[in-house]
């Protein structure tokens, strides 16, 4: 059984709920491929034997005037396949107190079970006071935070806020907030690893494929850039599987993770058990 911690539900059904969503996906999110029906995402998850998939909202209103997609849309898509999907809310630190209220509403009323932030697309400093207030509320609500770290290909956004090292300070200040550093912070992988090793509450996701095919990238990331022995001995309980659909197909990422030449128990932890710990304990 596999849990995919990192899916952007930019599917046809979401675009029907918000007619400008495809335009925002192209212009702001930077992905120009046509949205696929939800059915094809479900088929991908079935083929990859993924039993739980985390769907992510992204609130970019203060910088770009849009959500890609909104918390409401994520909640509606989760409701279509409630046994398969778990929704993560997103709120915009730039909206101040309103963001706190919207976060409480999304968790308590919409049933979303975590938070997604992206300092590049949302254009906020992770160490800013407004972001700090948001973390305090996330910690109070006892939900995990998945945050983008590392490269953003789109030239519309800046990556100065995406170095994973800034999360050392935040993890230190919020020791009970579970923080997942997306993409292992690639290319600042060792910075992300250092933060994850220093803090019990920090995890890494391996979503997206920056350096080639999924097999090429995960092999590079978890057996070469990070030597296999470090992955196995130090990070076995820290790494979570994620695909980053629709930027990559889910079965290709699962196949790549399963093909890694590392200890089989560690692969099982990456695909399943580590996410269980973060989501449900």
């Amino acid at each position, binding site marked *: 059984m596999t849990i995919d911690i990192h899916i952007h539900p930019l599917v046809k059904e979401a675009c029907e709920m918000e007619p400008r969503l495809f335009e925002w996906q192209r212009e702001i999110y930077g992905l120009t491929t046509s949205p696929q029906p939800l*059915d*094809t995402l479900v*088929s991908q998850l079935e*083929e990859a034997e993924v039993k739980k998939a985390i769907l992510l909202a992204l609130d970019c209103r203060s910088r770009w005037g849009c959500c890609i997609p909104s918390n409401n849309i994520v909640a509606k898509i989760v409701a279509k396949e409630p046994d398969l999907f778990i929704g993560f809310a997103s709120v915009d630190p730039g909206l101040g107190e309103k963001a706190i209220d919207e976060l409480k509403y999304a968790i308590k009323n919409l049933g979303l079970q975590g938070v997604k932030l992206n300092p590049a697309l949302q254009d906020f400093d992770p160490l800013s006071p407004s972001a700090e207030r948001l973390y305090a509320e996330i910690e109070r609500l006892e939900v995990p935070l998945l945050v983008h770290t590392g490269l953003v290909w789109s030239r519309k956004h800046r990556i100065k806020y995406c170095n994973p090292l800034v999360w050392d300070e935040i993890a230190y200040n919020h020791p009970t907030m579970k923080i997942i550093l997306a993409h292992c912070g690639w290319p600042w992988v060792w910075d992300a690893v250092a933060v994850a090793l220093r803090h019990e509450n920090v995890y890494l996701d391996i979503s997206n494929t*920056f350096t080639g*095919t999924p097999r*090429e990238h995960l092999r590079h990331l978890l057996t070469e850039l990070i030597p296999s022995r470090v992955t196995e001995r130090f990070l076995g309980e820290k790494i979570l599987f994620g695909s980053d659909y629709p*930027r990559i197909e889910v079965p290709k990422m699962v196949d790549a993770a399963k093909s890694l030449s590392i200890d089989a128990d560690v692969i099982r932890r990456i695909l399943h058990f580590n996410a269980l710990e973060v989501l449900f304990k």
Partner: protein
Amino acid sequence: MKVYFKELTIVTRRSCELINITDEVKKAVSESGIKNGIVLVFSKHTTTGVFINEAEKGLERDIPFYLKKLVVEEDNFFHHHFFYKDGRMAVNAWAHIRSVLVGLHAIVPLKDGNVLLGGRENIYLAEFDGPKERHVVVQIMGE
């Protein structure tokens, strides 16, 4: 001469599969009212194929299996890099190459309202990088 155009929407379920679309093509021919001419079946996707072959369960497994053996997925493809045009990595050169080998269209004669397929011939859409929503054009030209 009359020209009739229909676009079929097919949602595939697997990363690699063959879908028999013969009945959908015949239905389009019937809707067209054209009795004699030719039928063009054309896929709009470069990681799919359209071909004619026997509808037999063993072959439906053998054809993808041997295409996979012929064009392996683990190799050093130049195509596998970030595409700014798409905003994502290209990771499916093997699907494009399989598509080139199979081809993207089939042409079948139409006579007296019948699609002139041989007794064992069926028209297939081949999915090489699914699951996805695919669009196949059926164009009928004749009188």
